[in-house]
């Protein structure tokens, strides 16, 4: 009786194993077959041919195109291994030319008056001289915004970036209240922006294009350090566009920051030039450092025009 039972259970086990084996082989074959034939994504991208013509081809035919690099949800949350992005802004070099602002708007396909990066006129006291102060999300190491998010739609990644998940955000705007730097912006669904997103949302033609799109209506957006560009070793749009090289972007682990022209050792730069972080006393530990506006490249000129007059 006992023997028979044992036998039958062993037979069952074998049968199960055989079935499992077939299933495994089946999936492997299926995978191999699908891998062979390139899938057309249906997404058109503009490329420049050798003879200087701009043509549209399917994005699957192009290697390493920003629109092809679809990071999975998990990857977006984790961050890039072995990186710790950091930024240094040299206030002596900022002349409020607003190229960073416009470059950012173009790269992320959003319209003024929304600005991920803003340039503010600051003056610490009457006797001191005013200076231009570019400000953006500081990707704090102790971010007050991610603390208060009720659904983990904004989170700190291992590479230092404070990122947003627009598919998760419920639009409570608590992160905006929590941010002492007013770095965050909300998509209130401005008709011009909706139209623009429809027309240009998938436009990747900008050389500084960043794969992170502008926020969906009803969610919060902010500077993302051009996540995908940073990952590929490309500089974010604002850094590329700054004509004076005021914004230095880099990697803390490599101990290097660059504006595309000049490259510096991060620690040495911070130590030699008296770097500081905005509102250090708040304990947010920003990942953006400022070099004080000393030995300026040009005298301070007040802005004569207001840029964002239209709502």
């Amino acid at each position, binding site marked *: 009786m006992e023997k028979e039972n044992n036998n039958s259970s062993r037979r069952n086990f074998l049968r199960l194993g055989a079935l499992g084996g077939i299933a495994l082989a089946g999936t492997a074959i299926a995978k191999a077959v699908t891998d062979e034939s390139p899938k057309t994504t249906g997404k058109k991208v503009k490329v420049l041919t050798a003879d200087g013509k701009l043509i549209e081809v399917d994005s699957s035919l192009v290697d390493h195109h920003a629109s092809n690099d679809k990071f999975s949800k998990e990857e977006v949350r984790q961050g890039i291994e072995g990186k710790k992005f950091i930024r240094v802004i040299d206030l002596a070099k900022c002349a409020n030319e607003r190229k960073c602002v416009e470059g950012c708007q173009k790269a992320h396909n959003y319209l003024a008056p929304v600005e991920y990066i803003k340039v503010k006129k600051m003056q610490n006291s009457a006797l001191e001289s005013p200076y231009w102060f570019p400000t953006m999300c500081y990707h704090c190491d102790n971010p007050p915004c991610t603390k208060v998010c009720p659904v983990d739609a904004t989170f700190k990644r291992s590479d230092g970036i404070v990122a947003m998940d627009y598919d998760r955000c*419920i639009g409570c705007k608590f992160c905006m209240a*929590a941010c002492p730097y007013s770095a965050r912006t909300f998509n209130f669904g401005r008709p011009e922006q909706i139209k623009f997103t429809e027309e240009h949302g998938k436009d990747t033609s900008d050389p500084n294009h960043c794969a992170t799109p502008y926020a969906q209506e009803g969610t919060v957006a902010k500077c993302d350090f051009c996540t995908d560009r940073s990952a590929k070793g490309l500089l974010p749009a604002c850094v590329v566009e700054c004509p004076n090289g005021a914004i230095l972007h880099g990697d803390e682990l490599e101990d290097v920051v660059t504006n595309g022209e000049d490259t510096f050792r991060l620690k040495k730069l911070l130590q030699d030039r008296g770097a500081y972080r905005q509102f250090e006393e708040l304990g947010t530990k920003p990942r953006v450092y400022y070099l004080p506006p000393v030995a300026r490249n040009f005298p301070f000129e007040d802005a004569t025009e207001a840029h964002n007059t239209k709502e």
Partner: protein
Amino acid sequence: MSKEKNIAESTKYETFTQEEYMVMKDDLLRPIEKTGKWGKIWIAFLTVIFLAGVIAYYLQESLGKSVTTGLSDYTMWGVYISNFLFLVALSLSSVFMSAVLKLTHFEWYRPLSRIADVISLSSITMAGICIMISMGRPDRLYFLIIHGRIQSPIVWDIIVVATYFAACVLVLFIALIPSLSTCKNHLTNLPKWQLKMYEILSFGWKGTAEQWKILKKTVNILTVLVIPLGIALRTVSAWLFSTTLRPEWDSTNFGAYFVSGSALLTVAVMIIAVYAFRKIYDLKKYLTNMHFDKMGQAMVLFGFVYAYFNINEYLVPAYKMSSLHANHLLNLFVGEDALFYWLVVLFGIAVPCILPMFKKLRKPFTLTLIAVAVLIAGWFKFYLIVIPGLSHPLLPIQDVPPSWAHYTPSTIEMTIVAATIAGIMLLVTVFSKYFPIISVWEVAEGKLEGKEEIINYK
């Protein structure tokens, strides 16, 4: 105050007889039996405002908040949030105007407790709706459950609002059971469904000694529970602000400050509600001048507590005038919002502290006028806590469209806010048309003058 209470008790409450009970019951059930022309107009009026709010919300969601609201990246929380704080304040009526009085044996709570409980339940309902209206993506509300993270004060708020809502339902309903039975037995010329509703909701209440024992025990437990819950609700809604790094909200006082403000506002709202019910339903015998006298005294007390917290909140930082606070405080004291701020201080703090100190002003009509002023100032006070706080961030606002620097609520926003207020009044009115707004048995029990005997209300 306690000495006064003893005198009042020994002189006011006489031994209670069955005949008196019959009279009382008739008085208190009368509003259910018939609704006059003005009652119908009033209900229709409130319904229209409420529906206007529903339409406004539909417009807001279909046209987009950019077009329909005055909100911007700096003042991204507008009147919806300040109104939410106001409604949460009112929802503590059950705590301050019923539970606290009940536990400390202020016998005059008896005819007030149900009014307070109904206001609480209606306010917390509308407050909950108010948070959802201010959300950018209401379609993702369920994310709070599937992705909710306990470290976020928003999640605390959702939990405490839901819990307090449940508590309010229980507090109101459990004490209502004997009244439902009274309705069932004494109101005959009503539609069938209504009588059926009383029968179902009274859960076979017979009024046996054992049932009374269970009921009173339950009511006692709920009375004790609703106080910490209410305080938690109010405190958590203050923490939505004080857990941020903005200097004008960054205060360890904030929870207590909000609780004290809400105590004052519940007195004000109760005075108005009691005045209205007494006048319209002709309940002068139950809602007496004595109640106004007591509520006027309570207003002075809570007014001073609130003033104390205001001094801590505004004058202490103003004494130091650190550059973090200066921007915001100077704007309130001498800047753009100065007139607004000082009017709110006058009507919201000075008036309730000083005027009801005079016995002559603690008469129903004058006290109600004072309460209206206090309530309106209270609404604006929350506006002044939320909006100027947001429009004076640490880094200066520069180079933005004019509408971004100065928030003005849009018509749609104000319609929705009006709808939430109308919603409260509608819920309270409709409730009073189906259920006795004064707890018959609690008043009767008061008249028993501490005797243990329980009457079987048949």
